[in-house]
Structure formats: C-alpha cells, structure tokens
C-alpha cells in the first residue's frame, strides 16, 4: 500500500467535510496556540540571533501544522524522536518556552548543559522528546530499537521518528525502516518533505515519485498527506499510531509542506529557492488555514486571536529574558556526563581547566577547586 496523492481535510473555506478530529474545543485551541507559539518563538529567535544574543536558530515557518498535527496523535507515554525542525511537538506536549530558551542560550539551566548548539533540545518530561543530534538520520534506527524494547516488555508505547526529505537518503533511514518492518516495531516514520535539504531540491535528492512510495522497499504502508493541513496530518498519523499500537507494525507518512525560511539563520535561501515558490506556498500557510476552520466553528474571533498572540508572545519574550539572565554552565560541565562516573583522567583534566581559569582570573574557576 502506498498513496501518491496527499490527503487533505481542511478546505480553502475552512470546511472539513464532516471530518471529526475527536478533539475538545480546548484541545483544538491548544493546537492552534501551539502553532502560534512555534511561529512566535521562531520570530523572536531570529531577532535574538540577528542581534548576536544567541548563536543560531532554525526556522519552522510553514511546517507548524505538520509538527502539531503529528504531535496531537501521540500520548504522553509515547516517545518523539525529533529532527531539529520539530520543536512544535515539544511545545504541544507541554514543554515550556523557557526550557527551550535555556537551550537557545546554552545556559546552566539547559537540559543539555550548554553542550549542544541551539535548537538541539532534549526533554524527558512531560513527554520523551529525544535528544536531538546534528548527524542526519541516526535517530531513526534508535527509535526502532526503543520501540523493540517497549514491545518486548508488552508496553503499548509508540515511537514517532521525524526527519526531512534529505533524511531519507541517510543510512539511518534505510536501516531504521528495514529493521522496523522486519521486527514489526511500533514506530511511525514521519518524513517532512519541505522541498529542500538546505539547497538540495527533492529532484536532486531522489528520483522516486515522492517519499511515501519508499515504504514499499520495506514492506510497510506509505501514506502522503498535506502537511499544511493540521487535521489531515493528525488523521494520517493517528491511523499510523493506532496501527503501531495494536501490533500492526510501522508506517511511513510523508507530509508535503514547504520551508518558508532559510535552512537556518546561517542560510540565505534566495540563492537557490525561486521566489515564485515562496509565493505559492505562502498562500497555503497552515496557520491562517486552521484559523479559518476555527472561525467557522465559532472558536476564534479576531479579538481572541489578538489576545492569544499577545499572551503567547509575552510568554516567549519572558522566557528569553529569563534564559538570558541565567548563568552559563559551570566549567565542570565540560567533564561531567562523559561517563556515568568521572574517570581519573577527566578529574585531572578538570582540575587543570580550573587551575588555568583561576590563573587567568576567569570567574569560571570559582574557588579554583574542581568540584566533581
């Protein structure tokens, strides 16, 4: 089974043709709020980066519905194996903007202790949002292994592994999907086809007819969905999650969407993305599209929208302020977490680092003693 025409639910006029998302009003508004939060978080990060207050960020504009729609199909006991362009899934599940901002600033409160680049989040609460790694695709077989563990113990946990169109060329895609299908592991593979892998077009990436069809190579179902349509993504991912949860094995979902920004704040897409493409996709912006639905359902007015935006913006700005005011990680964090317990040679090297910092008069040295 594999489809090539993307499933769509939300029509241009906001109608959904009788589709029932199975969400309460609050839940619907939470989806909306989450998409908005992604957009505003991004906006602020771009400013922070441009003004040199953070080093780097990754824009998500255009992809919000894919992230939130997919996340909404999961339980808190499920795991997310995200790409670096997926933090909307964490927001949806209740990770607070300030926890994310700690990472953007790489400070002492960052769960990664300032060791990773910005946007390389890691959370275990309120949902397992797996530590993002820069190497593309490595998390795919890892999700499969984690799924195998759950299955072996008879748990009904499902793993969602998310990656880009470029990610399908990675080694992890091939081994991950193959192992998952052979083991009938409870995993949903979400390929976010956003048109580009940095500057590489989809045609330069693969000669196949889209990405869902790649499921055939592994003997699992492949489904294409309109990635700018929150409900369509929710529907397709929910079905895949259900299949996984009930022992039906993995599914590959391709969400067709578009990256409206650069690859990252270090990238200028104008050198390789034709302007027309931006224009045509702007018309499909997932946020106004969902607003139309909400307005039609009587859940959103321009007033409530404005208030919500103000509230979210304030929360995010406050998060940034807090994170910026938080101290840098202690010098000893260079040496901790390499192993569960500190080996002797790292103790020595740590003490050297403290000695040196002390001699330089660097405040990082504290009292000069390596504290671990």
């Amino acid at each position, binding site marked *: 089974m594999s489809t090539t025409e993307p499933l769509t639910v939300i029509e241009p006029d906001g109608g959904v043709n009788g589709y029932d998302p199975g969400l309460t009003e609050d839940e619907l508004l939470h989806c909306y709020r989450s998409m908005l939060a992604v957009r505003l978080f991004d906006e602020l990060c771009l400013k922070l980066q441009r003004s040199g207050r953070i080093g780097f960020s990754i824009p998500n504009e255009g992809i919000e519905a894919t992230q939130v729609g997919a996340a909404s199909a999961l339980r808190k006991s499920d795991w997310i194996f995200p790409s670096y362009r997926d933090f909307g899934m964490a927001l949806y599940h209740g990770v607070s903007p300030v926890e994310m901002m700690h990472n953007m600033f790489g400070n002492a409160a960052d769960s*990664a202790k300032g060791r990773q680049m910005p946007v390389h989040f890691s959370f275990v609460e309120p949902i397992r949002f797996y530590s993002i790694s820069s190497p593309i695709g*490595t998390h795919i077989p890892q999700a499969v292994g*984690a799924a*195998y*563990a759950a299955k072996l113990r008879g748990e009904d946990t499902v793993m969602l592994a998310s990656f880009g169109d470029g990610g399908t060329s990675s080694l992890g895609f091939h081994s991950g999907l193959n192992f998952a299908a052979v083991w009938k592991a409870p995993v949903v593979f979400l390929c976010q086809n956003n048109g580009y892998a940095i500057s590489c077009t989809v045609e330069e990436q693969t000669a196949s007819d889209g990405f869902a069809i790649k499921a055939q190579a592994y003997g699992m179902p492949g489904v294409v969905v309109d990635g700018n349509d929150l409900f369509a993504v929710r529907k397709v991912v929910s079905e895949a999650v259900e299949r996984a949860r009930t022992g039906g094995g993995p599914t590959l979902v391709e969400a067709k969407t578009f990256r409206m920004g650069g690859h990252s704040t270090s990238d200028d897409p104008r050198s390789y993305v034709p302007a027309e493409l931006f224009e045509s996709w702007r018309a499909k912006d997932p946020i106004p599209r969902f607003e139309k639905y909400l307005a039609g359902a009587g859940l959103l007015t321009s007033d409530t929208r404005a208030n919500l935006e103000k509230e979210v913006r304030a929360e995010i700005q406050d998060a940034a302020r807090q994170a910026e005011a938080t101290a840098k990680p202690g010098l000893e964090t260079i040496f901790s977490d390499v192993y*569960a317990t500190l080996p002797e040679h790292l103790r020595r090297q740590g003490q050297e680092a403290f000695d040196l910092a002390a001699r330089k008069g660097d405040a990082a040295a504290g009292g000069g003693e390596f504290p671990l």
Partner: protein
Amino acid sequence: MPTLTLLQAINDGLKTSMREDDSVLLFGEDVGKKGGVFLVSEGIQAEFGKERCFDSPLSEDGIIGTAIGMAMNGLRPIAEIQFQDFIFPAFDQIVSEAAKLRYRSGGQYTAPMVIRTPYGGGIRGGLYHSQSGEAYFCHTPGLKVVVPSTPHDAKGLLIASIQDPDPVLFLEPKALYRAVKGEVPEGSYTVDLTSLRVVREGEGVTVFCYGAMVPVCEAAAKEAEKNGIDCHIVDLRTLYPLDEEGVIEAAKRTGRVVVVHEAPRFCGYGGEISAMIAESAIEYMEAPIRRVTGFDTPFPNTLEHHYLPDKRRVLDAVEFVHNY
C-alpha cells in the same frame, strides 16, 4: 572451577548475564540459529528464545542504531559485529551517538550497551578479517574499550561490561578463542573496567600488551629470561579509560619499556602509552620506548606471519631496550 577456552568463557558470560537479568539480550548477524560464525553464542537462542537472541538484517548501522534505542529504553543489549573489520558502517552510530548521548542530553538519555566483536589476525583473514581497530575507539570519549586475554578475564570483563552504565566495546581476540584455556569461576563475577593485569612480575623491562599479543609477549619473556632479562608484563585489558597511574608505575619500575600491539603503528594505541610515559615519567626512562606493532600497511594474507608481531620481534625490542 571448570577449565574453559576463551570462547567458552564468553559464552558462559553471556548466559550468566542473560539468566541474571531479563533485560539483557543478544543480537547481530547469525548469532541466533547458527550461534555465530565462531559459535560464541551457541545454545543461547535455544535457552533464551528468539526475542532475546536473534539474527539481524545485514546492517551494522542498524544493529548499533537499534541497540542504542533499546539501551535508552531500559534494555541491556549486546550487539555482535561479526568481525571488527565490519564495524565501520556503524562507526557513525558508535562515535557520534552511543559515545555522545549521555553528554549531549545532560544525562537524560544514556546507552548502556555492549558491542562485542572478534578482532585481530592469525586466521589468514587478509585485509578484512584481521584488523585491530582499538585506536579508533580509544580516541572517542564516552566509549569504554575492553580486550580480554584470558578466559577468566573474558567472562568477568564481559559481565562488568554488560552491567556498566556506559557503552562498552568488547574486543575479542579471535586468535585466542580456542587457543587459550583457563579456570573460570562458575556464576557471576566481574573484573573492574579500569584495571590492569600484571601477567608476570619482573625488574628488567616492562612490556605492555593486550589481547592476542599477551601470550606472544609471555613467550618472548621466557626466551628473554634465558638471556637473563627479567620482563614485567602488563596486560592493559581495559584500554579506555585506562589505569594511567598503573601504567606510569609499571614503566617507572624498570625504566625500560616495550609496547606491543597488532594494529599499525602510526597513531596506534601504543603511541598513547609511549606519549603518556614521555609526559609523566621521562626522567625514569633509561632507554628509548620501543613499539612492536603491525606495519603501517593494510593487513596481508599469505604473509600475515611476517606482519604480526611475534616472539622474535618482541624479544628483539626487549633486548634492545635492555641493553641500551
């Protein structure tokens, strides 16, 4: 105490761990029905079932990638790589992922797992069934690297590796699988993962070695003794993290050092041992620090006996530093 070969001791260690702890499982190419190409895992599928001992598709990337996922979700996977030469497709998963997961997640996610793989020459395996790649992994913080040379250590180090909270690469000297025998305690015991083994005490020349080079060095020491040279042999056995103080002490003891391994010399593990001594004990050295290693070439086939360090080459070096 039963007397086992190295191979039997590993098999015993695997079974002991799997009996002790339900979360331990073993998978990889051909480890199930067949029991592994060397038969190290013979009888394991039969005893523990297909869910805890099974064959994987032919992808080392997949084996290690999924093992990491199992490990972070509560299992204690033992992933077998059929030959160490075939570990390189998984290099990214090992070096970028297993080794760095705890660090990059601030300890939120961890990968307690063992990668078992036979390494080294002596079976006429040519370029791709003979290599000793320990140096690649010992340059990778976050990994532990272990190489047993006796049945006793093989079982004890293996159980310790399985219980360890960090990823451990467990290199099995395939040349010794059936060539060494020794007493092995029944039941569970561990050997510390940062510890040296003094193979033989001596005052003349300190010889550092590990894995399949240990018996070679022992043989050389016996020869040397005839010429009045008294070797102090240290089996490094836990290559990374290493008991560096133990190494320095052993080096100071004689002031004359030879380091032996099968892998190519340049940027090999022996270089670290020499460098460590040159950094911390150079004033104790009464002779150049000599390395006896594989040559800086790929591993040949027909001529492997000329490639691998043997008794004669070790003895030469021992005599050289002794008489310096």
